[in-house]
C-alpha cells in the first residue's frame, strides 16, 4: 500500500490541504473526508448575495453550487484525490493510526490533517425550533433565505460580522430587523468604539434597530405552537416581537469526535508553530480548528476564524507533514510560520477590510480620516495596538490604495526577525 494522508474535513481547509500536498510533491494517496453532502464551497456569499439576489428562485443546493461566487474552484492539475462526502470521522486511534468512520469502517493513515472547522454556537434556550436559524452551511442559507420574506420580524442575536451581514441582507429582503447584542456597540472588539458606532449608525440609517447591552433570556413561543416564536425576551424584562430568530453568537470547533484521544480539546486543536498537533508526528491541523502561536504577535496559541486562514495554514501544514513523513520539501522548513491574517465584511454598501489582530489590544484609535459626511467614500483607517505597537489595522470604506497601505503598516510593524531553523 502506498503511503496515505487522510484529511478530515472537506471544506476550504481540506481542499487547500489536498492541493498543497500535491503542489509540494506528495504522490501518495490522499483521502479527504467531508461531513457535508457537497464538494467544498465558499461560505462568504451565504450571508450576502445568496440571501439577497433577487434572481434566485427558491434555490436548491445545486443551483448555489453552480454560482461562480459560491463554487470553490480546485487548483488546476490536482489529481488523484479520493473525496468522501456525507460521512464523518467519529474517532481517532493514535496508537494504531486509524480514523474511525461513521459507517463503522476504519481508515488507516500515515499522515493526518485535521480540518473539521466550526459549527455555530446555539443559544442555551429551548423551543421555537421552526423559527430559529443559524448560518454556516448551504442548507442553512437556503432555509434562511426562504424565511426572509417582506414584512417578517427578524431578531438577530449577536452583532458580530455574521449578525451584521445577515441584518443588512434581511433589510434588503424587506424584513423588520432588530439586532440584540451584549456589548455597547456592534462589532466592538474588532472595530474599536469609534468605527463600531459609525457602522451602527450606518445600519440604523437603513432601518436596522439595535438592542445593545442586552442579552436574550427567553424565547416566547405561540401558546398553541411551541415550535414557532412570537417574541424574544431580554434580560431587562422587555420583549422584542419576532417570528424569525437568527442565532449569530459565535462558533464552536468541531473537535468533539476526538474525545478519548487525550488531546487538549478545550479550544480547537493545540498546535506548535508548525501546526503539528501537540507534538504528534505526522498529525497537523488546518483552518478554524488550528490553535497555534503566531510569532507576529506573541507566543500564545490562538485560533483565527478568518477566511484567509485555511489557505495560509494549509501551506504550512503540508510542509510540516511531508517533513514528518520523510519527504521534506526543499527549503520548506527554512522559515518561521507567521501568517498575516486578513478579513473583510460587506454590510450594505460599506466594506470593512482588515489585517492583523484585535485580540489582547490595549489601544484602538483612528489613524486616518474621520466620520464627518462622506466618510465612507473617503475611508477611515483604524489601528489596534499592544504596548504601543500596531498589531491590527483596518479600513472602512475608502479605496484599494488605503487598504494596501493598512496592510503594509501592519506587516512592517509585526515583522519578525528571520530565524534560521
Amino acid at each position, binding site marked *: 500500500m502506498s503511503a496515505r494522508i487522510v484529511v478530515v474535513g472537506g471544506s476550504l481547509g481540506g481542499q*487547500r490541504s489536498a*492541493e498543497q500536498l500535491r*503542489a509540494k510533491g506528495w504522490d501518495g494517496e490522499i483521502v479527504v473526508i467531508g461531513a457535508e453532502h457537497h464538494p467544498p464551497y*465558499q461560505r*462568504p456569499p451565504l450571508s450576502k448575495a445568496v440571501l439577497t439576489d433577487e434572481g434566485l428562485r427558491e434555490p436548491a443546493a445545486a443551483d448555489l453550487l453552480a454560482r*461562480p*461566487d459560491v*463554487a*470553490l*474552484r480546485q*487548483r*488546476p*492539475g490536482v489529481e488523484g484525490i479520493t473525496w468522501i462526502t456525507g460521512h464523518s470521522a467519529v474517532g481517532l486511534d493514535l496508537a494504531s493510526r486509524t480514523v474511525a468512520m461513521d459507517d463503522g469502517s476504519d481508515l488507516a493513515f500515515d499522515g493526518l490533517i485535521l480540518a473539521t472547522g466550526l459549527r455555530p454556537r446555539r443559544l442555551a434556550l429551548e423551543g421555537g425550533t421552526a423559527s430559529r436559524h443559524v448560518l454556516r452551511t448551504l442548507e442553512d442559507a437556503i432555509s434562511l433565505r426562504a424565511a426572509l420574506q417582506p414584512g417578517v420580524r427578524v431578531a438577530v442575536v449577536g452583532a458580530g460580522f455574521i449578525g451584521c451581514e445577515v441584518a443588512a441582507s434581511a433589510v434588503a429582503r424587506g424584513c423588520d430587523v432588530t439586532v440584540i447584542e451584549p456589548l455597547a456597540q456592534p462589532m466592538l472588539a474588532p472595530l474599536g468604539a469609534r468605527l463600531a458606532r459609525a457602522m451602527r449608525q450606518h445600519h440604523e440609517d437603513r432601518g436596522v434597530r439595535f438592542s445593545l447591552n442586552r442579552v436574550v433570556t427567553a424565547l416566547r413561543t405561540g401558546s398553541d405552537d411551541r415550535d414557532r416564536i412570537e417574541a424574544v425576551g431580554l434580560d431587562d424584562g422587555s420583549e422584542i416581537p419576532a417570528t424569525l430568530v437568527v442565532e449569530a453568537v459565535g462558533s464552536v470547533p468541531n473537535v468533539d469526535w476526538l474525545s478519548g484521544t487525550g488531546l487538549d480539546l478545550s479550544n480547537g486543536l493545540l498546535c506548535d508553530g508548525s501546526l503539528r498537533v501537540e507534538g504528534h508526528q505526522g498529525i497537523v491541523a488546518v483552518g478554524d480548528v488550528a490553535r497555534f502561536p503566531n510569532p507576529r504577535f506573541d507566543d500564545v496559541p490562538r485560533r483565527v476564524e478568518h*477566511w*484567509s486562514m485555511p*489557505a*495560509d495554514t494549509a*501551506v504550512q501544514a503540508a510542509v510540516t507533514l511531508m517533513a514528518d513523513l520523510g519527504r521534506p520539501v526543499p527549503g520548506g522548513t527554512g522559515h518561521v510560520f507567521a501568517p498575516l491574517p*486578513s478579513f*473583510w465584511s460587506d454590510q450594505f454598501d460599506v*466594506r470593512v*477590510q482588515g489585517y492583523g489582530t484585535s485580540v489582547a489590544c490595549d489601544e484602538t484609535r483612528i489613524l486616518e480620516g474621520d466620520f464627518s459626511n462622506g466618510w465612507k467614500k473617503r475611508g477611515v483607517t483604524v489601528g489596534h495596538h499592544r504596548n504601543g505597537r500596531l498589531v491590527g489595522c483596518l479600513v472602512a470604506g475608502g*479605496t*484599494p*490604495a488605503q*487598504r*494596501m497601505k493598512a*496592510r503594509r503598516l501592519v506587516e512592517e510593524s509585526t515583522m519578525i526577525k528571520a530565524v534560521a531553523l
Partner: protein
Amino acid sequence: MKVTVDTKLCAEMGQCVFSAPEVFAFNDNGKLVWESNPDLGLRDAVDEAADVCPVQAIFVEHD
C-alpha cells in the same frame, strides 16, 4: 503561463497584489491591472495569488 482576471468578480481586495506584486497592482483609479503572461519564475507566486483571492477572480493556465 497565462493569467486572466474576471473583473466582474474582482472586489479590489488586493490579496493578489501582496502574493505576486510583479504581476498584480492597482492603478490610480483603484482598478486591478495585471500581467497576462508573467515570467515562469513567478509560477508559485501566481498560484498563491489565485488561491488567496477571496472571490476567485484569478484564472491561471499553465502550459
